[in-house]
């Protein structure tokens, strides 16, 4: 497994000391990523999905954080790498794209100059002219029309979608084999989102670019991911292939997420199936399963935390944290014929 693995994350734990006390933002996340693979980490605010992604590239290091576990990129440990090593890894081996491309570019420098500078910071032998040429090539490759002219634009002269394309171009400048995209389309209009998703899919195909996609949107996941991790309150509650998660989901939280989607290709239900309650505070987690207070299928065993384990005989790579018997789950997860979480009426 790890022989062909590009990235190997083992039991990653990230704790923060806050005014309210110590909290565990990420509590034991493990996964492998093969070259060219797209893994989606799905969750709501506070699930730990973004903290996981940021920790992979050292962005959560601080006197108030405590990071444990292992993150190996092509076998090299990143968790205890020094800042200089990490700086080289970021950009050269791992590219990053964030939700808001406006805050990722410096507003007072031209787009092309910023991309060229990112290249020259890692490859000092590159001349300014070469950097500029490369920036034009990159902008062109992510579908920016008239790249040779647009290279001299300032960030504010680009539309939101164009800025996100430019951000992707910058992330790819040093030809990394892993892209971490944190809610890359959340701030964009739906028509622009479709273009960016198509671009990510094309890069994945043409460059064999492995991608970790952080998102709250299962529609986006269905469009691009190979495998999915579902996170809740700092833990992975379910992990499987795209089809396993959508067609044979094992955790009630996943049922709830799938059930509450509005489907344009289906008749609309009278009421939207909803998950009752709200995610717990990380400062005051329930004992056992964190989803227990919101789960209509809770039973006595749920006060004990279930491990993330394979519970289906025929799907050893499909893991979940729920004590219910798989057979029972297949009945419980059907709400009026569709996968969902039956919540008591308000």
């Amino acid at each position, binding site marked *: 497994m790890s022989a062909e693995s590009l990235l190997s994350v083992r039991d990653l734990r990230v704790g923060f000391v806050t005014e309210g006390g110590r909290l565990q933002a990420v509590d034991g996340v493990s996964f492998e990523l093969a070259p060219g693979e797209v893994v989606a980490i799905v969750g*709501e*605010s506070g699930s730990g999905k973004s903290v996981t992604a940021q920790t992979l590239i050292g962005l959560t290091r601080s006197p108030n954080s405590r990071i444990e576990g292992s993150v190996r990129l092509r076998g090299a440990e990143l968790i205890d790498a020094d800042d200089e090593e990490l700086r080289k890894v970021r950009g050269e081996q791992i590219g990053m794209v964030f939700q808001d491309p406006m805050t990722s570019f410096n507003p007072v420098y031209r787009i092309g100059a910023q991309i060229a500078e990112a290249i020259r910071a890692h490859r000092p032998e590159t001349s300014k002219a070469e950097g500029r040429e490369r920036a034009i090539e990159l902008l062109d490759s992510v*579908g920016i029309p008239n790249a040779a002219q647009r290279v001299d634009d300032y960030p504010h002269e680009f539309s*939101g979608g164009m800025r996100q394309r430019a951000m992707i171009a910058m992330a790819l400048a040093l030809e990394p084999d892993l892209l971490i995209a944190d809610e890359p389309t959340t701030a964009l*209009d*739906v*028509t622009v*989102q*479709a*273009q960016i*998703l*198509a671009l990510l*899919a*094309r890069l994945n195909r043409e460059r064999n670019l492995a991608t970790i996609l952080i998102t*709250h*949107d*299962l*529609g*986006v*996941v*269905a*469009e691009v991911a190979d495998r999915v991790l579902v996170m809740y309150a700092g833990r992975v509650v379910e992990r499987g292939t*795209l*089809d396993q998660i*959508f*067609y044979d989901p094992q955790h009630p939280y996943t049922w*709830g*997420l*799938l059930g*509450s*989607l*509005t*489907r*344009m*290709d289906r008749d*609309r239900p009278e*009421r*939207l*199936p*909803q*998950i*009752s309650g*709200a*995610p717990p505070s990380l400062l005051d987690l329930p004992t056992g399963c964190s989803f227990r207070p919101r789960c209509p299928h809770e039973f006595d065993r749920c006060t004990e935390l279930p491990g993330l384990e394979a519970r289906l005989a025929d799907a050893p790579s499909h893991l979940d944290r729920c004590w219910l018997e798989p057979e029972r789950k297949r009945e419980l997860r059907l709400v009026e014929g569709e996968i969902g979480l039956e919540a008591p009426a*308000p």
Partner: protein
Amino acid sequence: MSTGAEPLLEVTDLVKHFPVKRGLLIDRTVDRIRAVDGVSFSVAPGETLGLVGESGSGKSTLGRAVLQLVKPTSGSVRFEGREIAGLSRRAMRPLRREMQMVFQDPYASLNPRKRVGQIVGEPLRLQGVAKGGELRREVQELLERVGLAAEHYNRFPHEFSGGQRQRIGIARAIALRPKLIVADEPVSALDVSIRAQIVNLLADLQHQLGLTYVFVAHDIGIVRHVSDRIAVMHEGKIVEEGPADRVCEQPRDAYTKQLLAAVPIPDPREARARRQAVRPG
């Protein structure tokens, strides 16, 4: 549902232009942004009209212009047959009881220094509907109606989650028993698992109180779920309007088609089939 009764709200040729100004000492108007550019629609009592569009389409400005929160440049807004476009603040005041707004951001739209009881009770107090113990009881009843508890009366907004804050905003909006509520992206700032709760709450309140909604949002999936009719906005104009299912299933306008085609399908097999059909660059 559209019943053929008198419309509650009738908007005709509504225009809202924002001037673009340049100049150091003396502002010159050099251009106009046509945020709403000649829009007409009507909403029947008890009906939900969905206004869907992307950023810059003018949908939010239209929602605000309907409630006279921004002054329309021209055109007519009739509420129960009465013209309200251009009414002074004073003349609008009694009408404020009839029409309320729910905002997108439940963090920014609640005063952080006021207690929940004050926030929800403010419209009742200002309009002189209730005071003292009666006001308190009324507010506690409102809190329970939106799924909060009477004990929440003395808490501050920061003690609540995003979904609960949106419930507070909704309690404030229904306090005066309005007939019309304009909801501007009421669920788009909320977590996925909370969105359905708020959508269902709005539906319940509509049934219980006979509310009429103008539901403004960019997410056509949510809009279709809540709306009887949908108006699609693009560049300040309504490009298509019709029954919700018809607009979504048999769109006629090119832009509506484009918008619908871009919505991700949360179903891997169907998403794959669609990608095979049109493999984009």
